[in-house]
């Protein structure tokens, strides 16, 4: 993204996934060229968010060009046939709005937040850059420096981020989820105009895009504008099926140690390969979503209870699962040991907790509390229509449908204690795991 990347969410950030049973104010339709449209109404304020999502992210890149999806995202703010470089954002700003974009493994998205009566202008400009960018060599050279500084800021200056990058690379043996969204530095340095344009021509087309319009709008009016600006763009017949290398059976436990003098707080983390949400089959992902909350979702979770309150071996614990992924995702755990507790002891304590949790089973009260919070999150979610736009756009970009999104809250509520333990047993397999220690250099006492 130009300013921030939600895909590179820090390990420490964990919240209940936003749920929304929004059937009443969401409408959908598909344009003749295959572009899907979702309209989410919220008439409380005269504001609209337009998002265009492409079903193309870093995991769709060709080998050797890591970072090109994100690089192209930056370059889409340069010139088109109709606009000068920088004119897009300048025009949004002159209309009192803000715009930005972000890239993840499975998608790239562009958005503007602006007064509702400016929607047509936003559509005019967004549809223009879907097909009309005009890049120069100078754009490439300067913007490549910018993304390298972005990598410096996000990754090179942050030992935790460098550690995560290595862990992902170890988790995926074959899938490009093991390659960072921002790109490997040596490949970023070689990204050129041809690589950017090849990606653009292949993936930027209406039949590979989803339009989400959320806010103070009427579906019929959005439809008329979408017909005018997006429906006239030709579909790309060469797009083809979205197929990426899949993981072979994972048969070897992986263990790694990452050392850096800038590490202030050593910790141990473990990730397991895990199934993702699939269209029409979201039950396993729902069970894992609840498992992550029960195990490590805050101060009332099992890991916090055992390791932070009872034995006090940890200052922080967390479990994390994100099922919003096109292909296999991961289920991750982290334990930050208390003073005087080694990483080996912390890991042993973490393993003991996993074993005892499966033996002991799900606490009925804890499950009821989380289901109550999930129900409430549907109410709170309606206060943030921009987040709802994100929810739908992301789901459609990873192969789910509007029906899947709307069924998800019920799928979560239907998960039983047995489902959760069964899911835990299937996922916690040592041979598909990566265990990492983040440490200071040998001999560094700090």
């Amino acid at each position, binding site marked *: 993204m130009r300013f921030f990347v939600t895909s590179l969410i820090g390990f420490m950030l964990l919240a209940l996934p936003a749920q929304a049973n929004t059937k009443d104010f969401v409408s959908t339709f598909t344009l003749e060229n295959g572009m899907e449209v979702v309209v989410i109404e919220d008439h409380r304020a005269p504001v609209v968010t337009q998002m265009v999502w492409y079903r193309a992210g870093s995991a769709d890149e060709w080998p050797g060009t890591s970072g090109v999806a994100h690089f192209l995202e930056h370059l889409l703010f340069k010139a088109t046939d109709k606009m000068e470089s920088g004119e897009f954002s*300048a025009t949004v700003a002159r209309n009192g709005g803000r715009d930005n974009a972000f890239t993840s493994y499975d998608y790239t998205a562009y958005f503007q937040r602006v007064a509702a*009566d400016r929607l047509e202008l936003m559509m005019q400009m967004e549809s223009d850059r879907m097909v009309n960018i005009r890049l120069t060599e100078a754009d490439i050279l300067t913007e490549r420096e910018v993304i390298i500084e972005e990598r410096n800021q996000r990754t090179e200056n942050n030992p935790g981020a460098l550690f995560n990058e290595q862990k992902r690379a170890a988790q995926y043996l074959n899938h490009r989820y093991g390659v960072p969204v921002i790109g490997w530095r040596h490949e970023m340095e070689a990204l050129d105009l041809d690589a950017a344009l090849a990606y653009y021509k292949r993936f930027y087309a209406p039949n590979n895009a989803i339009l989400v319009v959320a806010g103070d709008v009427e579906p019929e009016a959005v439809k008329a504008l979408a017909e005018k600006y997006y429906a006239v763009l030709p579909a790309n017949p060469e797009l083809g099926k979205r197929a990426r290398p899949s993981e072979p059976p994972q048969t070897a436990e992986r263990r790694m140690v990452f050392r850096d003098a*800038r*590490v202030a707080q050593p910790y141990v983390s473990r990730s397991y390969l895990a199934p993702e949400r699939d269209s029409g089959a979201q039950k396993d992902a729902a069970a894992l979503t609840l498992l992550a909350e029960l195990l490590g979702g805050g101060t009332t979770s099992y890991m916090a209870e055992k390791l932070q309150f009872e034995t006090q071996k940890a200052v922080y614990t967390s479990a994390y699962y994100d099922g919003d992924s096109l292909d296999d995702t991961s289920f991750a755990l982290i334990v930050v040991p208390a003073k005087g507790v080694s990483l080996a002891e912390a890991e042993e304590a973490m393993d003991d907790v996993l074993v005892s949790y499966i033996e002991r089973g799900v606490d009925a009260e804890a499950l009821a509390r989380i289901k109550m919070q999930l129900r409430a999150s549907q109410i709170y979610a309606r206060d943030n229509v921009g987040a709802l736009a994100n929810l739908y756009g992301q789901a459609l970009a990873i192969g789910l449908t509007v029906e899947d999104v709307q069924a998800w809250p019920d799928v979560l509520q239907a998960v039983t204690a047995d489902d959760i333990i069964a899911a835990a047993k299937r996922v916690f397999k040592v041979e598909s795991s990566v265990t990492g220690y983040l440490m200071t250099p040998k001999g560094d006492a700090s």
Partner: protein
Amino acid sequence: MKALALALTTWLIALPVFAGVDIEEVTTPGGLTVWHVEERSIPFVALELRFRGGASLDAPGKRGAVNLMTGLIEEGAGELDSRAFAKARDALAASFSFDVHDDALTVSAKFLTENRAEALALLRSALVEPAFDDASIERVRGQVFSAILSDAKNPSDIAGAAFDKRIYGTHPYGSDLSGTIDSVTALTREDLLAAFAATVARDRVYISVVGDISAAEVGPMLDELLGELPEKGAPLPTVAAPVFDGKTVVVPFETPQSVAVFGQPGIPFDHPDYFAAYLLNVSLGGGGFESRLMDEVREKRGLTYGVYSYLVGKDGADVWQGSVQSANNRVGEAIAVIRDQWARMAESGVTAGELQDAKTYLTGSYPLRFDGNGPIANILVGMQFQGMPLDYIETRNDRVNAVTLEQINRVAREWLKPELLSFTVVGQPEGL
């Protein structure tokens, strides 16, 4: 391209009609002032409390007491220990967050209409009878230590702390509100109780309530919630006297990309030149891709991912501040470009076009902020905290539009001080 440009200009004529945010000022039977907006479409309420003083009320030698105390407010209250409290809150699906910064201790709460009374009773117990039990103190103290150690190895945190120390000196703003390992180690339960009594009091609280609740219900609700708090807290801290020497100071730290924080004297919110300065900052480095700093440092030269300037308004100090991050071998050039742009802006100000762009951006984006109960509650409590009148929202865009080119360029000459612009750089910068 011409055709599109024409089409664009026609769009610029009408600015959006302002969103109706109908604020009512409620005085509770117990004498508290509350700003309230009734919004019935979603069955929940957002509540914001802000207690003036915050971490600056740390007693001498007790740095970090208010911060540690804030971390403990939610760790057990009344009959409930830490975990029982968290379970009760989660079972209600209420959310409470307690935070502290230099000038205020803040409480943000959201709760459902269906269990409002229970959620408020729980919040009340946290605010009126927090436990501060020994086990929780030690656990949270360990978390604070972890944060202090992490900040000490994070270049952005090091830069912020070094810059603050340099300009604010011994004033509380000059040191990290978390305290040091030594100062936090020495804190006792009595220190935390004293910090609580100093900070959480009725004479310094600002309140907003937005959502599914009537004005008539707001008064009794707040009196119940805050009625038992002490009337008076500790005296508010004295103002700071930030010092700027105009130099570039390097703090060595082994990392590939340097982090620079920079600043010069700022401008108070109640000064007649404030809105001109605010507009000037939009053109200078105010966050958009169109600002001069972003254009010169990022778009033209690729020296950074982001460069920003902003007006910092604290209770006891005003600073015109900014930040940039750039590789060790390029940060020197980035700083030179920023200094040059700062001087150019001071000398010749903005163009009529830049002023117009900044105005249409600020006035057009203002209504976009009011797009949910949570955001509105946050804005309303901030307005009270800054001493804004109830009708500020309706007059704010007029104040922006009233700024003339002559005024903004006079403000650029008088308020921008390139010779005082001071940089603190953390990293291994080359050639500085």
